[in-house]
């Protein structure tokens, strides 16, 4: 979606302000929101792409005004409610008021390190052949889905060069909306700074994105 999250090349945000000796978390609630988000992936049964869509799918002004863990937490509330795991009256009461819905699995303390170590690899076997090779010139399609996509606006319509064929990976545009992993070939595509930004571009800079085959057309 063309939402507040798609920030590449937008202007007016000011300078970057690194915080010296920044702590990992800035408040106790951030720790709990972070851990709840990770732990609820298992009983919630949602995937990373659905989670990203739940975070970005809000008015851009709201998105930009929120602290990052507030965004995470808002998505966690939303997904938990959508799946009937909690209800608003329970959050207001601060207690469970309705009987729990059966869930497949809950993250136990014994499994935490194992689950983190395993992660969630997204590469999949395929019997298809990659359509592009390193050196091929490709144009990024001009797509504007209101649903989740990982093709940023700032490259759409622009021409880049395939730098690397990464492999066949889960396609977020499908995975986010529950229509399956639909694995697609993934490439690193490199763009010249001036191709993306015209006269304002830096001729000594290049930018790459990782793009799935459905985002590309042969130039």
């Amino acid at each position: 979606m063309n939402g507040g999250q798609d920030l590449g090349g937008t202007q007016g945000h000011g300078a970057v302000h690194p915080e010296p000796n920044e702590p990992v978390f800035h408040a106790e609630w951030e720790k709990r929101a972070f851990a709840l988000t990770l732990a609820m992936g298992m009983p919630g049964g949602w995937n990373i792409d659905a989670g990203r869509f739940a975070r970005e799918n809000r008015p851009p002004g709201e998105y930009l005004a929120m602290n990052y863990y507030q965004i995470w937490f808002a998505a966690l509330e939303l997904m938990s409610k959508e799946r009937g795991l909690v209800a608003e009256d329970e959050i207001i009461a601060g207690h469970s008021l309705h009987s729990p819905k059966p869930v497949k699995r809950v993250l136990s303390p014994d499994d935490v390190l194992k689950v983190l170590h395993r992660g969630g690899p997204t590469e999949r076997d395929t019997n298809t052949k990659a359509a592009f090779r390193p050196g091929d010139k490709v144009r990024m399609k001009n797509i504007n889905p209101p649903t989740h996509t990982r093709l940023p606006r700032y490259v759409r319509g622009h021409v880049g060069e395939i730098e690397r064929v990464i492999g066949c990976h889960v396609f977020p545009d499908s995975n986010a909306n529950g229509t399956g992993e639909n694995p697609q070939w993934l490439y690193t595509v490199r763009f010249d700074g001036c191709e993306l930004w015209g006269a304002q571009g830096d001729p000594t800079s290049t930018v790459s994105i990782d793009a799935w085959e459905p985002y590309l057309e042969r130039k």
Partner: protein
Amino acid sequence: MAHDHHHDHDHSELSETELRVRALETVLTEKGYVDPAALDLLIETYEKKVGPRNGARVVAKAWADPAYRARLIKDATPAIAEIGFAGRQGEHIVALENTPQRHNMVVCTLCSCYPWPVLGLPPVWYKSAPYRSRAVSDPRGVLADFGVSLSKDVDIRVWDSTAEIRYLVLPMRPAGTEGWSEEKLAELVTRDSMIGTGLAKQP
């Protein structure tokens, strides 16, 4: 005055968030969906155990051991797993080698993708609009925000982490560190030097 008002506003907003987080945790725990001990362990892991010291060990080893460096550049995920770092948000890692001609810088313009097993959780600035918007359009301007100025002869390569590939910058080894141990070299490797918004410390 304006500043005070802003502060008060932030404070009340966060208090409301704080209450909701506490309420949701209680509800989810009462329903048996989460185990608070698992939450504590998740927090402890990312607060105390997984952080940029991991990445610094990888970089120092690459500086000290040419065979390891070659393995890291060729396929970083197994090379990093050799030292014991792997998993969530680092399932597919690529190492980017800085050279006198090329400087690499990593961003996620769409969210906050970051190589957790080697760098831990991202700092606030990495997730912020100023960094995510300008890293791709004005990388030298962003570097200036970090006090870094590179010669015009150096090509800047920005990597936008739009998929599940996570990037780790291998900064250049500072001169004057010949014969140093990996432990001593690791002390020169900063978090920002592995994102590409900084350089390794000089000895």
